[in-house]
């Protein structure tokens, strides 16, 4: 049997080991950068080909530009919730 998969069959964001990813709007991203007092290039990176990013793209229905910022909320052993920001880069 051959399956033709058009959309991903499995939503990785729903997996309990995958932290919550959220695309920030330009304004939000600007605010975060101001709060941290950093420029975009100083943020940790995430590739556009990352399955989470691709999934968010699918859900939004439009591509995510390089240079956008993604907010990741992790459940942490030490702190309850740890928030991290990643810059979308090519790849």
């Amino acid at each position, binding site marked *: 049997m051959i399956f033709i998969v058009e959309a991903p069959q499995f939503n990785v964001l729903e997996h309990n080991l995958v932290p919550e990813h959220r695309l920030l709007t330009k304004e939000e991203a600007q605010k975060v950068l101001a709060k*941290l*007092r*950093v420029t*975009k*290039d*100083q*943020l*940790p*990176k995430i590739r556009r080909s990352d399955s989470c990013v691709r999934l968010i793209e699918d859900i939004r229905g439009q591509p995510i530009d*390089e*240079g956008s910022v993604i907010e990741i909320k*992790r459940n*942490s052993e*030490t*702190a309850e919730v*740890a*928030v*991290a*920001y990643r*810059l979308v*880069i*090519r790849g």
Partner: protein
Amino acid sequence: MMRGVSKRIGSIKFACLSPEEIRKMSATKIITADTYDDDGFPIDMGLMDPHLGVIEPGLRCKTCGHKVDECPGHFGNIDLAMPVIHVGYVKEIKKLLQSTCRSCGRLLLTEEQAKEYMASMDQVEDLGGDSIELRDMAKITAKDAAARMICPHCGADQLKITLDKPTTFREDGHKLTPKEVRERLERIPDQDLDPLGISPKSCRPEWMILTALPVPPVTVRPSITLESGDRSEDDLTHKLVDVLRINQRLRENRDAGAPQLIVEDLWELLQYHVTTYFDNQTSGIPPARHRSGRPLKTLVQRLKGKEGRFRSNLSGKRVNFSARTVISPDPGLSINEVGVPEEAARELTVPVNATKANIEQLKIMVKRGPTPKMENYLPGVNYVIRPDGRRIRVTEKNAETVAETLEPNFIVERHLQEGDVVLFNRQPSLHRMSMMAHTVRVMPGKTFRLNLCVCPPYNADFDGDEMNLHVLQSEEARAEAIILMKVQEHIMSPRFGGPIIGAIHDHITGTFLLTYRDTRFDKGQALQIMAKISNIQLPEATIKDKSGKQYWTGKQLFSLILPKDLRQTFKSSICQKCNVCKKEACENDAYVRIKNGQLLSGTIDERAIGSFKGRILDKISRDYGSDMSREFLDNVTRMAIGAIMVKGFTTGIDDEDIPEEAKRQIDAMLTDSIDKVDRLVAAYHNGELEQMPGRSMEETLEVMVMQELGKARDSAGQTAGQHLGIENSAVQMARSGARGSMLNLSQMAGCIGQQAVRGERLSRGYHKRTLPHFEKGNLGAKAKGFVINSYKSGLTPTEFFFHSMGGREGLVDTAVRTSRSGYMQRRLINALEDLKLKQDGTVRNTADSIIQFQYGEDGVDPTRSVNSKAIDIDDILYEVLGDEADLLAKVEDKKMGGYATVEKDLMETFDEDAEETAEEPEFESGGEE
């Protein structure tokens, strides 16, 4: 001495050298392969030309006129007769040849495409892409360009270019000479280089083909004169001689119009010599060798690997003002101190600036000279440095005169004296506690002395260990070391939120003997126990017998060194973990209760003061600070030694003596078990064994046999243990946590048990059997490595053999583990060394990029955490609620559970395992705990 920054490095740029630059920086052209003439003078325009710098003292450089050490050396150059490929750039050259047109030299992409690639590279750079990412992108651009077979600019057909390693290029099978390659590279226009990741300003591609070779200064390749008077040249010089010779022959042949074949052969030979001059381990060509057959150490070999310039000269350096010797223990020292032998103290010096205030004292010191002969050690002086920078060596003869000439602004290098701050270190330096600041105590003898409590952080023992000591030379360094590196600041380990410095071995036994149950000491004994501790007074005696003689309890004496308002409750190591805790009424005296600094009940052992686990230690360093904990530790050391000396303590093989009756019992039990195993084996053969889920019949049998024999070993140990009471020294050590475990004891007194390799019973050796002493296919206990005897009763030859099989596995494991974890550590350190915690709580690297938004995600310093938690709620409840019994009980149970996890700390189990297997191998399936 000049200090401070005179020049600051703004940036560093690496680029290729152009032939013009090589010739411009050259002090002289090198043309002859000869180095020295018959009289031993260097030949002009030879490899040892005096223009290239000086290596012999007294001579002056012909280029700059400076003497040895002042002249940095100057480059020369060799003009190559024919161009030659630089091995370091072959990959780059290949990329360039493949991605540019063979006739017009343009990049094989349309203008628009090139712009597109440039734009995306710019974007990556803007978003913080590093050089590696940019390089990868350029690689992709080149690959896309190489895929095009027709030039978009001139329409020429492209041929396939291959690289014949290491340095031969072919175009459709035809050899391209370096000259042809160079011509092609010259044709590439500047604007086409940017998309390929090359900046034409710093590197034109044709510079990758050498037409001139820089000759390093003689200071880089000094020749050495042997005792016999012969000169021995550096490997680089040898290699350059080869290059020059072939270069010369090539030039002559070419100019004389020799046949093409001969010229090509020589050209290739020149290529070989230049290639090996750069890298003598280039794959595909044989390494150039010395006459003795040793491969030459050329440029790349000088830099690469563990012995290379980077790892051995830049990351690791040799230093002055340091000492190394064997270490030995001294419980009389504070944990902050280190005992330095007089001999070493006279050699190690501290610079002191002479001022009006101290000049008289310094004069006295200088007068003592370098070797004062006095009853008590007093510091002398080795050197005096004048303000003009001249060093005057102080000798016994000139000491007086030098002292007279001493003036303010002189620097006096005086001997070490008591109280000087030094760094003390033991390799391998695995964590920050491997190097701590100590204060000096000068002592007779030839070894460094240290308090036993600092053994755990250094992982030191005294079986011949050596340690290093570094004397700090500046006031800033001393201040920093005192604040950050002093031993007392490192009692709490950042590995887990608990103390790493604490009592070990005899100290634990000592406090155990002092405080276990109702000990009593008369006045003499009590004073002897307290003798070495300052600032305490003998309290009122608690016990008076009929004759009126006074006695002090051990608990009372121990309370003397506790902070006066300490309040704590916990269970000690000897706790039997009963289902219902009897608290103060505990018959093992395991319930420790301290109130108002008085030890009311319980025994002080490993759980209270031991390193890694000591609860009192933990509490004191958390609540009272490092000065108090240092004092407490020093006092515990002294009191424990006092107590153990008053009580007396020894252990011997007779500690494992058990009654004949018990021995018979154990024997019977073991025979019984072995019979049971035989029955299991029989059942297996008859197919009567009930198969376990998920296991084959063989596995089922193995599991059941292992279970049975494990039980047998345990019950033998228990039977033996019943006859070894708490009054037994070996048991006291095991139970108090000082040394050894009950398992070790039961192996000595009862039965050693099953030997295992890779977690299975022994099975290999001969065909279907372990040893020829057993019949083939025997699955019984004895045939597969069950040792019935104890270490005390002695092993039979076959048992001994099995035991060594298990023992060997332990040794191999430790060897493998240490090398592997060492390598892992190196990689981790290299990856993390430039990370830094910034003021705003973020962790960043040197590029100022964020690695963690909050250090550890919660911003908590693990050193100050409680068992890696940010706050200790239980402790706060204690403080607030005091003695609410029921609540306390609950709190306690939770706490004990929490504390046990400390032992599961990975590094620690690793350490302990390593020690255990190295010293007393044990290979059973389930150990204690």
